[in-house]
């Protein structure tokens, strides 16, 4: 991955994490929205729409990456951490898409699916974040050198 690409993915992930967190009623409670210029962080609709938009960019990029990555035979170079990341991203993407699907008026899920999709979509980014930090601290790369 080039430096530019790393930055792009880093910023995109942060923006997704941020707009994702903004789905919970915490930015107002914890004063972030009180800071001048940050009132938008408590605008649920705005952050929801931004999250969709960012998800569009992420999905396009990830699936583009899947093809180019596969074709360049880099898959066998993935470390355990690399595979873990792939699965976590996969889970986030899958539950996110289910959630988008659910938000169409024609689509109805039963109450348990609704619940677990949300909980998993909320939980996996936490795990991803933890492994990201652990990987950095322990100096493990996701690709074999």
């Amino acid at each position, binding site marked *: 991955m080039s430096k530019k690409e790393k930055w792009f993915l880093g910023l995109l992930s942060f923006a997704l994490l941020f707009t994702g967190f903004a789905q919970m009623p915490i930015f107002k409670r914890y004063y972030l929205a009180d800071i001048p210029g940050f009132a938008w962080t408590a605008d649920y609709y705005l952050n929801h729409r931004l999250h969709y938009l960012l998800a569009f960019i992420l999905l396009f990029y990830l*699936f583009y990456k899947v093809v180019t990555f596969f074709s360049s035979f880099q898959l066998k170079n993935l470390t355990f951490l690399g595979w873990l990341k792939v699965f976590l991203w996969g889970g986030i993407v899958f539950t996110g898409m289910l959630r988008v699907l659910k938000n169409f008026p024609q689509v109805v899920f039963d*109450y348990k699916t609704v619940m677990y999709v949300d909980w998993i979509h909320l939980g996996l980014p936490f795990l991803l974040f933890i492994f990201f930090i652990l990987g950095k601290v322990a100096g493990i790369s996701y690709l074999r050198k």
Partner: protein
Amino acid sequence: MLSRRKFLQGMVAGSALSLLPKGAKAVRDEEELATLLDLSKCIGCGACVEACKETNAHKFPKPQKPFPRMYPSRVKVADWSDKQDVDDRLTPYNWLFIQTAYVTWQGKEYEINIPRRCLHCQNPPCANLCPWGACLKQKNGIVRINSEICLGGSKCKSVCPWHIPERQTGVGLYLKLLPSYAGNGVMYKCDRCYDRLEKGLLPACIEACPEGVQTIGPRKEIIAKAHQLAKEMSGYIYGEKENGGTNTIYVSPVPFEVLNKAIDTGPGRPHLKPVPNSMALEENLGWAVLTAPLAGLAAGALKVVSKLKKGEEKNE
């Protein structure tokens, strides 16, 4: 049209799935049902309000006191447990109330009584934007808040164009998590008597009405009936298109702009203004999100092919 007791029985029998806690069932494979409210008939007697309270009393919050201390301290608790009798607005203990408008329209005086509760939107923002999977829409058109897991963050209320759900502090899952730091109780609103519907009974408010104001049935039929009724009384419709479509269709002899100006609105007392579809943008963006993987795959494939071609050219 279903205006008699047990009429729904055939429709729901055998299709229930034992999923919800406390023995409740999620009804599946059902048609989307809507209610029709003929406002020319409502006399404002309040029998429906009373019936709702009585029938749904077992679902009402039983908060533990004292409430956990809230951080930061500016977070306000919502406590209706000592005001359970309030019936002139929506509260966690009152999911239906009557709004009254005294108006003159085309030289005639009217007293219009409007039973108000959740409209059960077709694409409900309260459910779509709930970050915790607690609010959901059922196939039969009911929009419900799962009180077993709701954390009371009140987001559903903020994003609802009518601000319908009402909070009670001191009850629910948040007490078992980080009560002082996240969550603030449970949100309550009309669940269109989902449990009665599952048993083939009518919602309590419909059954109790002495004037037959409300009718429930498949949405298509209800819409057709509403239009016919509106035509007969040269009346007006509210709820068919509001917020992209709801399953509560009001028909009134007086325009709703006029009624809206004559009713008391404010906390717990929803307006009757026109409401555009809150989810319109998401419905379009959603398609883009769902097709993004395909677009990405295609772009990736193009890139790979062009790379291969370049390689071939080099080899030649």
